[in-house]
């Protein structure tokens, strides 16, 4: 009996050894080839520009991995920049699934140990840990997305960045409004059935600003529209987001958008044949018949800004807001199969008006709070832990979002939106 097992085991080992041996040889030759490629790329870029990236190392800390649309958006943009600047794989270290706790700090420190000169972190909860890492490692640049502290923290190597994505959301809302209009005109729904749904992650300014601007975009086209919002209390939960979308659809919402990071909601919409507006990903492959359009923060311009400044040894913005003009706020390709006729032209027109300042997303004449126009609002811009408003943000007839600080602070509950 023992002999039999011994024979089986040794045969298994032999197989495995053979397989692994063969693999080893293959790998060596390919990795050599890769290295050569990397080198030649670096040479060409240094020839092109006066900045040398050869000694630079870049770290990225992500809360989740590629399966999260939010994190994937960061990862893909960094890979784009990597290719553009001709950086080798050894120069770009991506750490995924890093929690919003001590592991964020140790990961940042490990990246410093590995020789990273500039380190990006993508999740709101990473901020305090990144701040600490920045204070302990003054020679390394730390860039934290969605954070609220850098503008007044006074730590020279600690930076925040975000984008005026509310403008992108507004545009996506316009596309959704055009679709609603088409549905009303074709008799598919009546004007008083124009109710849309929104799956939000947390009842937090970043999300509130997002759904409000989206709603205002839709209402710019369809004045009768109302919206229901439901929260999953998680940034990434496929099952919860799916359920939330189905709940909204059951409630009679005829179009869904979301600010949560899985593909749960768009997939549910495709199943039910309900048009969907996404965030940060092109969902056309998931919902060929329902994915309408998607707004996205393109992080590439910010990566380039920070990486280039670091390479040159120059200081850069403590707090940076990307806009349509910087290429940071984008609308991903419109799905012609779903979009209403004339949407593209309308979007171009509105985009132009936003860029010239002719149209303000949070124009106070376009919304009310408890039946009244909002003439003054103190927003919690300084984020000093007291959670009280400190900055008047309504000036010249509109709410100045992402101007005093990149991270959104529009957290007003406007009329027409119902929280479930």
């Amino acid at each position, binding site marked *: 009996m023992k002999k039999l097992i011994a024979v089986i085991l040794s045969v298994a080992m032999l197989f495995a050894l053979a397989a692994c041996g063969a693999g080893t040889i293959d*790998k*060596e030759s390919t990795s050599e080839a890769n290295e050569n490629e990397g080198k030649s790329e670096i040479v060409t870029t240094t020839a092109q520009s006066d900045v040398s990236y050869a000694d630079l190392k870049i770290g990225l800390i992500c809360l989740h*991995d590629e399966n999260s649309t939010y994190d994937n958006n960061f990862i893909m943009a960094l890979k784009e920049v990597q290719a553009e600047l001709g950086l080798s794989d050894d120069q770009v270290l991506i*750490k*995924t699934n890093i*929690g919003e706790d*001590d592991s964020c700090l140790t990961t940042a420190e*490990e990246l410093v140990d590995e020789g990273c000169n500039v380190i990006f972190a993508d999740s709101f909860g990473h901020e305090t840990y990144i701040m600490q890492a920045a204070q302990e490692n003054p020679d390394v640049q730390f860039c934290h997305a969605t954070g609220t502290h850098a503008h007044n923290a006074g730590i020279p190597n600690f930076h925040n960045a975000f984008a005026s994505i509310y403008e992108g959301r507004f545009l996506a809302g316009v596309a959704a409004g055009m679709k609603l209009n088409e549905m009303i005109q074709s008799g598919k729904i009546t004007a008083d059935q124009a109710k849309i749904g929104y799956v939000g992650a947390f009842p937090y300014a970043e999300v509130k600003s997002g759904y409000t601007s989206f709603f205002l975009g839709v209402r710019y086209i369809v004045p009768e529209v109302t919206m229901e919002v439901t929260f999953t209390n998680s940034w990434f939960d496929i099952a919860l987001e799916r359920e939330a979308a189905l709940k909204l659809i059951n409630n009679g919402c005829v179009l869904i958008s979301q600010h949560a990071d899985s593909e749960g909601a768009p997939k549910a919409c495709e199943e039910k044949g309900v048009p969907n507006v996404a965030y940060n990903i092109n969902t056309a492959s998931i919902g060929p018949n329902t994915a309408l359009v998607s707004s996205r923060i393109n992080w590439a311009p910010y990566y380039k800004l920070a990486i280039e400044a670091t390479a040159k040894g120059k200081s850069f913005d403590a707090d940076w807001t990307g806009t349509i003009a910087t290429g940071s706020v984008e609308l991903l390709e419109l799905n012609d199969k779903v979009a209403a006729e004339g949407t593209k032209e309308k979007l171009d027109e509105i985009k132009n008006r936003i860029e010239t300042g002719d149209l303000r997303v949070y124009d106070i004449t376009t919304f009310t709070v408890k039946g009244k126009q909002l003439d003054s609002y103190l927003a919690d811009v300084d984020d000093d832990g007291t959670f009280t408003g400190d900055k008047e943000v309504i000036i010249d007839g509109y709410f100045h979002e992402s101007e005093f600080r990149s991270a959104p602070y529009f957290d007003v509950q406007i009329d027409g939106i119902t929280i479930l």
Partner: protein
Amino acid sequence: MSSNSSGKTHEPLFHIAKRNSMVWWKAWLIRGISVIVSLLVCAVIIVSLTHQNPLEVYGAMIKGSFGTNRKFWTMLQSLAILLCISLAVTPAFKMKFWNLGAEGQVLFGGLCSMVLMFMVGDRIPNVILILAMLAASILGGIIWGLIPAVFKAKWGTNESLFTLMMNYIAIQLVSFAIMIWVPSGSSVMGLVNSGTKAGWLPDLFGQKYLINILTVAVLTAVMFVYLKYSKHGYEISVVGESESTARYIGIDVKKVIIRTMILSGAICGLSGFLLVSGTNHTISKELAGGNGFTAIMVSWLAKFNPVMMILTSFIVVFLQRGAGEIATKFNLNTSLADILTGIIIFFIIGCEFFINYKIMRTNSGKEGK
């Protein structure tokens, strides 16, 4: 199809029999072989899926724990926490009390610490604050462990379901507390008292995790002695083997259940304290990070022997840290690393079968039954 083919009974070629015992070196030889085989299977998967050199991948895995001084200390810290929670669940499991609630007990213990750290952090001296947090966490853990134990002892409720549900209550309580403390709705506490460091366990010899590590080291020794040499430890084993026997020889089973769960909960609470005060200085739903469940595996693998648990928790932590390392190094999704971890642990657990049982060829001459 419900009809059964009667008459013909198929005689299996092999049958399984319990081994009486195995010489220690043979058992370890089998364990060693199973680890090697698991690495070979992983190698096949690595090569076929990613075309990477498995030796390089394993090298990177080792670097995840031993690559730098910092990584080594981080590994020790993770090991200490997992070991601490494993020590916590051990007495209960040895007693065959299926405590699936370590996650919640740790979380609630941590929450109790955070209440003090956040609410009175800057108002009382740090030493008193830390001691109060420690006491609060242990008490919190005890309460969370005691509730299902009392129900089990008094009314015979199912402790697996009960402890499992207690986890969700703890998660909701933490969410609720954060919602109140952070009215902006972000559900993120961030570092608490980062300016004053009130309620933070201090560095020892310049190492921020050393207090955690030493605490758990001492606890491991104490638990070893408690289970092996104390009367309580003996009672736990007897209750675990057979409640009837325990009752027959005059052990108060209810008392043992409640007493043991108090101990289990207390150590979970201590883990919560170490996580809040010594490691993260924040709280979130993910404080225990699944370790409450991983600990069960660690404890069983070590056959409830606290000293062996150092090894089994090391294996788990080593694999976890290695997983993160290879994901970054080779630009792979962490899922691949999880698959490898799964395979290795599968083999390690699976080999215990061959240590405890033998497969024998069925003698066809005899009536098989």
